[in-house]
């Protein structure tokens, strides 16, 4: 992690706004609070405009000559396409209820991180060019000229929003900053202004099917590496299949779980569960990522990357799709996939082959969340579980923003957790479920150079974890998101040392009693299991 000031230093936050009005306070690009610019090659890979090498802290952003025309035309087009945008531009009363709901405002004190002001950055331009009052009254109507400084401000602050939608929960009109951020990022993309942490994965994902750019043979190797680990730990030999036609189920999960710890432990959990069930499923190296950084880029790119899931399901002739643990992937699947790339009339309404449960709530999209799938299995007593194998974990659960506020997936993962762990403690009300706090690194902002801002943004989440750590001795933060599994470990290390991060299905994998397994002496991480009372240490 790039150098970040010490926690005590970081928390000297002044929440009072500066002396100068916000329109007269130019943005300062300070190291640690912005991400690197998108590289030319990553824009070229997906035919995006204005590929060039540039840096946000330089004076000249090498914008196209007619940049202003492009942005205003882009905004006009989007106003006619999104009622949400049109309404959110017009009805905010600036009551301020959203202000201290944003993790970035809480952690930074920068007034432009208040959702209301973040949106005003766009509204002011909208008023100037799209409303009569703004044209005539100018600044008195809250309107301002679109300048390159405004573009720089947009870039800074709309890549300081993780699209977590927490502010939208508290807004009396449901104004959703994520929606505004998505649209401003689209406008910035028209000028070729993106961050490389988004543009790079997008370019990879388009070509190889996953964000990390893992090629098919390597993808297979990486999964098989986990298979070897499972055999070492359990004595059970698993034989997953790839790109297999005629399988009943296509399994799609974020590629982060294939790539690095602690996601790989979650991957092992999936493999063990499916093997134990004898599930007729296949992996795909083409649809090798359910995650969709295109969503952090533009709706069009989200659709371009999401396309492969249905296409692959159709090619392989599966009946339905099962999706792994991931946050924004599930926002795209739950709220966008069917609309963008459906109808999935070549698939069947998902039915669990083990329990016979028909997942009617996914009857059109035909994709089921693994937490729903596993909760159903446990409810029907189809799994043999020994929760004592997780006794060395005192677990709390982080509701990932998207499955929480865009799906309402609250009870399924908790039901699974309560069945695979003996020590589960929820964080306080107001910090979980629909009011959950972001990890601080979502929305494509998980870059190393952005570390200071990530630690600031993740502070409210960490603060709630610290509460349960002090109260119950919690040492494990469970989650259902691959970005969380990458972002929360450094966050915990920074704010709440001693708390490890685990995927839900890693804990399932620990507890799962497999037929033919040797007595387990360690958990999936290789930590020795405690004897008897389960009071073992990590």
């Amino acid at each position, binding site marked *: 992690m790039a150098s970040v000031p010490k926690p*005590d230093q970081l928390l000297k*936050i002044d*929440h009072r*706004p500066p002396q100068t009005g*916000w329109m007269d306070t130019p943005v300062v690009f300070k190291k640690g609070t912005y991400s690197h610019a998108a590289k030319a090659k990553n824009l070229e890979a997906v035919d995006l405009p204005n590929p060039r090498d540039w840096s946000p802290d330089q004076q000249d952003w090498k914008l196209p000559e007619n940049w202003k025309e492009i942005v205003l035309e882009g905004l006009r087009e989007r106003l*006619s396409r*999104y*009622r*949400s945008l*049109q*309404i959110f531009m*017009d*009805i905010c009363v*600036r*009551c301020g209820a959203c*202000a*201290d*709901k944003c993790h970035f405002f*809480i952690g930074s004190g920068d*007034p432009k991180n*208040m959702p*209301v002001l973040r949106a005003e950055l766009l509204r002011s331009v909208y008023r100037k060019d799209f409303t009569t009052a703004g044209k005539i009254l100018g600044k008195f*109507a*809250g309107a301002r000229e679109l300048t390159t400084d405004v573009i720089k401000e947009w870039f800074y602050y709309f890549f300081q929003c993780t699209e977590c939608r927490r502010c*939208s*929960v*508290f807004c009396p009109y*449901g104004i959703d900053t994520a*929606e505004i951020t998505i649209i401003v990022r689209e406008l910035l993309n028209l000028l070729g202004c993106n961050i490389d942490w988004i543009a790079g994965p997008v370019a990879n994902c388009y*070509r190889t099917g996953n964000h990390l750019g893992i*090629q*098919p*043979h390597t993808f*297979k*190797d990486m999964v098989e590496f986990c298979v070897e680990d499972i055999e070492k730990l359990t004595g059970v030999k698993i034989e997953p299949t*790839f*790109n*297999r036609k005629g399988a009943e189920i296509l399994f799609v999960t974020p590629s982060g779980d294939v790539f690095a710890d602690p996601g790989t432990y979650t991957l092992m959990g999936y493999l063990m569960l499916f093997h134990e069930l004898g599930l007729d499923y296949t992996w795909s*190296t*083409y649809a090798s990522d359910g995650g969709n950084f295109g969503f952090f880029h533009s*709706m069009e790119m989200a659709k371009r990357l999401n*396309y492969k899931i249905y296409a692959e399901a159709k090619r392989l002739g599966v009946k339905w799709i099962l999706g792994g643990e991931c946050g924004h992937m599930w926002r795209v699947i*739950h709220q966008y996939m*069917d*609309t963008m790339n459906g109808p999935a009339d070549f698939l069947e309404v998902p039915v669990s082959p083990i329990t016979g*449960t028909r997942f009617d*709530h996914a*009857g*059109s*999209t035909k994709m089921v969340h693994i937490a*729903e799938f596993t909760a159903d299995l446990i409810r029907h007593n189809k799994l043999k579980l020994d929760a004592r194998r997780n006794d060395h974990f005192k677990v709390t659960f982080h509701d990932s923003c998207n499955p929480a*506020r*865009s799906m*309402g997936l*609250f009870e*399924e993962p908790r039901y699974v957790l309560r069945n695979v762990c003996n020590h589960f403690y929820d964080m306080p009300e*107001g910090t979980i479920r*629909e009011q959950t706090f972001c990890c601080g690194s979502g929305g494509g902002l998980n870059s190393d150079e952005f570390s200071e801002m990530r630690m600031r943004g993740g*502070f409210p989440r960490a*603060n709630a974890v610290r509460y349960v750590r002090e109260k119950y001795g919690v040492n494990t933060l469970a989650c259902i998101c691959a970005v969380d599994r990458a972002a929360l470990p450094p966050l915990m290390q920074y704010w709440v040392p001693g708390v490890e991060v685990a995927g839900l299905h890693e804990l399932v994998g620990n507890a799962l009693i497999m037929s033919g397994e040797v007595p387990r002496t360690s958990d999936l991480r290789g930590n020795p299991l405690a004897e008897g009372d389960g009071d073992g240490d990590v």
Partner: protein
Amino acid sequence: MQFAGLVVVGIIMLVFLGVQGLKLQFFFGVIIPYLALVVFCLGLIGRVVKWGRSPVPFSIPTVHGQQKSLPWIKASAIDSPVTTAGVVARLALEVLFFRSLFKNVKAELGEGRRLTFTWEKWLWLAGLLFHWSFLVVIFRHLRFFTEPVPAVVHSLGSLDGFFQVGLQAFFITDLIILATVLYLLLRRVCIPQMRYISLPADYFPLFVIFGIALSGISMRYFFKVDIAAVKKLAMGLVTFKPVLPEGIGVIFYIHLFLVCVLFAYFPFSKLMHMAGIFMAPTRNLANDSRARRHVNPWNYPVKVHTYADYEAEFGRKMEEAGLPVENSQAKVS
């Protein structure tokens, strides 16, 4: 704030001069109200139609409760609605009771790096009281525009005027509206972040409404105007046979003009949240996007990387790794 304040003071001066000096009673008493009403209606309809013309391409409700998934998990019918009734209930609770605002918590960074949250109910309370009082006040005014006055208007009036001051009924809503507008104003001025985000367009309606309430109250309790004459004027307006009775004080014209300003200003301002709250796709859609397909009217085709493209690049490597392919290159060569 100063700007918005000056504008409102200017408006009041304008009426004073116009009525007292230039004797423009007909202009302020008849023409302006009709004009304001036309602007309000056309503006409101125009704005809503404009919103309505932009489609809702995606199903994007913000979900506040457990989804409907497995039959044994209790779903939240209102916070994660799947039926129209659920959506209507959710919206009704927002509109009638400001439910989201009710959840407002204040985050504070305290001692020992601790972040604490406290329930902040004042904005909710003031907002709710303000809006409800305003509605009651408007409803009470129907006694000027109806003949005979419906019983329900009378009874609401007596309920509102439950507390008698001397011989006269004192309307509690008058007091509430003044107090809450003052609170909303002070909040904007005194809380640094609120002052920072506030625009003239935020102060202006507060000043106008304050002016309306103050002039209305003065008329009722202090500078008495000829109520019978006011009613004659009002009835003339609603029956489209405008008359201009003598002896209505200038304070009435100030009151009326401020009301007209508010009406005419309404469609072009943030006050449109009144209509917008019903149309926000984050609140008025059901959380059923996996059960029912939401259709995007402008869903255009995009350039994609097909499996064939993928295999064309990686096919050989796939075969070497023992992965199945559509077109074996090994056989060809």
